[in-house]
C-alpha cells in the first residue's frame, strides 16, 4: 500500500508528506499497541490476582498470614501445607469421586441426548412435536424446584450416599437434546437418503454417520455437561453424608475449610490442588470448551 502511494505520487513534496504521515501512523499504531498490551495485562492481572494470592497464602506460615500489610510473596514457603491438605483433607479421594460422578453424568447425558435427538430429527412418529415441547419444557424447571421430592425419591430408593443418588437425576438433558437435534437437522437429506439406499439401518446411520458429523455439538454438550456436574454443589451437599467414598471435591473443600479453620494456608492449598486438574483440562480442551459454552449464542 505504502509502495503504491509513493509510486502514484508525482511530486516529491507529496511523497514527503505521505512519509511523515506514515511515520506518524506507525507511531500511533505502536502507541495503540502498547496501550492494548497494557490494558490486556491489567485485565490479566485482575483475573489472576485472586488465584495468585491463594497460592501465596497457601505457602505462608500462620503467623505470616495475619501480618499486616499482607505479604505478596512467600519468602519461606511452607510446602508442607500441600501434603497436609491432600492427606488430611482426603482430596485425592474426593477428586476421584467427583471424576466418577462427572463421567457418569456426562456419558449419560450425551447418550440419552443423542438417542432422543436422533429420534426427533430423523424418525417420524405420532406426538413427535408434543414430545419435543415436553423435552424443551424441562428447561423451564430449574433443578432447585425439584429438590425436595428428588431428595425424597432418592432416599426411598436407598440411594442416599451413593453414586446412583448423585448421578441418576441428571442423566438426561433438555438443552443437550435441543442442541443435538439442531445439529442433526443440518445433515443434508441426500446423505440420509443415500445411506438408506445403501441399506443402513437407523442404528448404523446414527453411529456411523450422524454422530460423527455432529461431533462439534456432541463435544459441546459434553463440555457443558462436564462443567455443570463438576461444579455441582447443592445436590451433592444434600444427597451425600458421611461417606468419604462418595463425597465430591466441592463438599470436601468446604469440609476442609471447616476443620482447618485456623490453618487458612492448608485450606488454600486444598483449593489449588482442586483447581489444577481443571486448569490442565482447560489448556487441552480450549476449543471444545469455547464451542460448548457458546452453542446457541451466535445464530
Amino acid at each position: 500500500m505504502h509502495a503504491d502511494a509513493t509510486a502514484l505520487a508525482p511530486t516529491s513534496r507529496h511523497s514527503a508528506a505521505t512519509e511523515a504521515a506514515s511515520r506518524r501512523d506507525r507511531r500511533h499504531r505502536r502507541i495503540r499497541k502498547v496501550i492494548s498490551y497494557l490494558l490486556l495485562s491489567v485485565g490479566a492481572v485482575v483475573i489472576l490476582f485472586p488465584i495468585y494470592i491463594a497460592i501465596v497464602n497457601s505457602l505462608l506460615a500462620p503467623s505470616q498470614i495475619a501480618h499486616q500489610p499482607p505479604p505478596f510473596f512467600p519468602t519461606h514457603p511452607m510446602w508442607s501445607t500441600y501434603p497436609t491438605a491432600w492427606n488430611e483433607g482426603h482430596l485425592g479421594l474426593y477428586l476421584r469421586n467427583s471424576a466418577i460422578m462427572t463421567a457418569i453424568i456426562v456419558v449419560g447425558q450425551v447418550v440419552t441426548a443423542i438417542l432422543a435427538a436422533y429420534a426427533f430429527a430423523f424418525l417420524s412418529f405420532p406426538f413427535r412435536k408434543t414430545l419435543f415441547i415436553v423435552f424443551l419444557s424441562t428447561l423451564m424447571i430449574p433443578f432447585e424446584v425439584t429438590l425436595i421430592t428428588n431428595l425424597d425419591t432418592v432416599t426411598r430408593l436407598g440411594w442416599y450416599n451413593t453414586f446412583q443418588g448423585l448421578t441418576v437425576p441428571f442423566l438426561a438433558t433438555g438443552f443437550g437434546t435441543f442442541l443435538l437435534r439442531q445439529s442433526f437437522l443440518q445433515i443434508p437429506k441426500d446423505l440420509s437418503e443415500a445411506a438408506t439406499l445403501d441399506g443402513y439401518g437407523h442404528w448404523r446411520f446414527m453411529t456411523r454417520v450422524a454422530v460423527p458429523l455432529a461431533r462439534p455439538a456432541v463435544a459441546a454438550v459434553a463440555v457443558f455437561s462436564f462443567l455443570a456436574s463438576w461444579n455441582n454443589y447443592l445436590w451433592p451437599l444434600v444427597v451425600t453424608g458421611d461417606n468419604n467414598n462418595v463425597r465430591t471435591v466441592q463438599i470436601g473443600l468446604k469440609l476442609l475449610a471447616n476443620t482447618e479453620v485456623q490453618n487458612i494456608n492448608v485450606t488454600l492449598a486444598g483449593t489449588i490442588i482442586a483447581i489444577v486438574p481443571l486448569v490442565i483440562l482447560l489448556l487441552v480442551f480450549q476449543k471444545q470448551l469455547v464451542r460448548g459454552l457458546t452453542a446457541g449464542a451466535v445464530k
Partner: protein
Amino acid sequence: MATTRCMRLLVSGALTASSLAAVSFGSLGGASAAAAASLPKCSVSALGKATGVVDVDFWESASQANQTTLQALTNTFNSSQSKVHVNLVQQAGYDDTWNKVQAGLTNGQLPDIAQLEDQRTQGVIDSGAFLPVQSCMNASKYSTSDFLTRPLNYWKVNGVQWALPFAVSAPIVFYNKLAFTKAGLNPNNPPLDMSALLLDAKALKASGSGMGLVLDPWHLETWLASANQLFVNNSNGRSARATKGSFNTSIGVQIFSDLKELVTSGDATTNSSTGPDEFDNLLGIGSGKYGMTIETSAALGTVTTLLSQYPNVQLGVGPFPVLNPNIRGGIEPGGSALYISAKSSPAKQAAAWEYDEFLESSSSVATWAAGTGYIPTRKSSTQTAIIQRLWQSDPYYKVAYNQMLNGLNSPGTSGSVIGPYADVRAALLAAEQSMYLSNVSPKAAVSSAESNVNNIISQYNQRLGVS
C-alpha cells in the same frame, strides 16, 4: 432454703427484676416419680445376652487436635474389653452432626451415640430420636453426685437427665499483658465485671489497641446467667416447655446498653462467631489490633500455641466478667453432651451406655479435659495426677473450672432449653447488631428481640402441635 436464697438476692440486689422471685428451684431437684415411671427402657443386661462383638457408631465433632485424645480414649476402651467396639465417625461440626441426625430420621442412617451441641436438648426431646440417659442411669444405679452441679443440670429437663456432659466450656477473658501495661493497666488484673471491662477497653483503645468482641449470643446468655436472669419462661424451659422469652428486664437492657457503649465508642470491634472470620478476635491479639477479647475456654490450648508465636504478646487469662458484682449469679455451661440413640437395638443401647460410663469415669474425664482444655466435669477428676500436672504447668486452665464450680446454682444459671434455639439465638444476635449498625436503642433492641423470640417459639410450638 430456696426462699432464703431468694430473699438474700432481693435484698442485696439493687434491681427490681421481679422475675427473680418467680424463679423456682423445685424442678431441679430429684426426678419426680411420675417422670421416672414413664421413661423408656434401657436394658443394660441386653449387652450380656448379645453374642459376638457389639459395634457402636459414635458421631462426634472433635477438632483435629482433640481427635487424637478421643481416639486414644476410645482405643483404651475397645482394648480393655471384648464385648463392645466403638467406631469414631468424625463430623464436620455440631451443626453438621445435627443436620445428619435430622436426615437420618428419614434415611435411617443414625448413630448409636452422638455428641450433640447444648442448644439441641429440646430438639432431642421433641424428635424422640434419643433415649434419656436417665433410663440407663436408673437401670445401672449410676450416681452423679461427683459431677459439677451446673453442667449436670444443664442437661436435666423436668427432673430427667437426658445426657451426660461431655465437652463443656464457658467464655473467659483472653488478654495481652503487654498491651495492658502499655495502656497503664495492671497486667495481672483482668476485668472481673462489665464496668471494669468497659474501662479497660477504653484504656486499651487509647493506647493503640482495643478489644475484639465476637458476636456470640451465647455470651449474651452468659451475662444473663451471671445476674441470675432467666432467658425464657418456665424456669428456662426446665419445669415445663418454654413458651416465651423472659429477658426483657432491666438486666437485659443493662447488658445491651453496656455492649452498645462498648462498640459504638469504638473501644471494641466486632466479628462474627461463624465463618472465615470466627477467630479474628483472637488473631487480632496476635497482630496487635486488640489487647483483649472474650472467647470460649475450650480455645485456651489453641490460643496459647497461636499467640506464643508473637513476641509482642504475653497471654493473660481471666474469668468471665459478670454483669454486676452485687448480683449473685453463676456462669452457665455450654458445649456438648453424649446422647444415646432411641432407634438402636437394646444391645447397642447397652453397649453405648457402657462406652458413655467409660468416657464419664473420673480418669477419662481427666484425660479428656487435660488433652482438650474442656472443663473437667467431675470433682474427683481434678484430683488426678494428670489434671494436677496440667494446672501446675498452666494455671490458666483452672480459671474456667473455678468459675463453673463456684457461683449460684439455679435455673437462671444453668442454661436454657428451647425448641427453636438456633433461631432464637439468631434473633438475639440480630437485635444486638441492630444497636451497632442501625443505632437502635438498647431498650428497643431488647424489646424487639423478645417479641421475635416469642414469635419463633410460638411458631415452633404450633408446628409441633403443642401450642
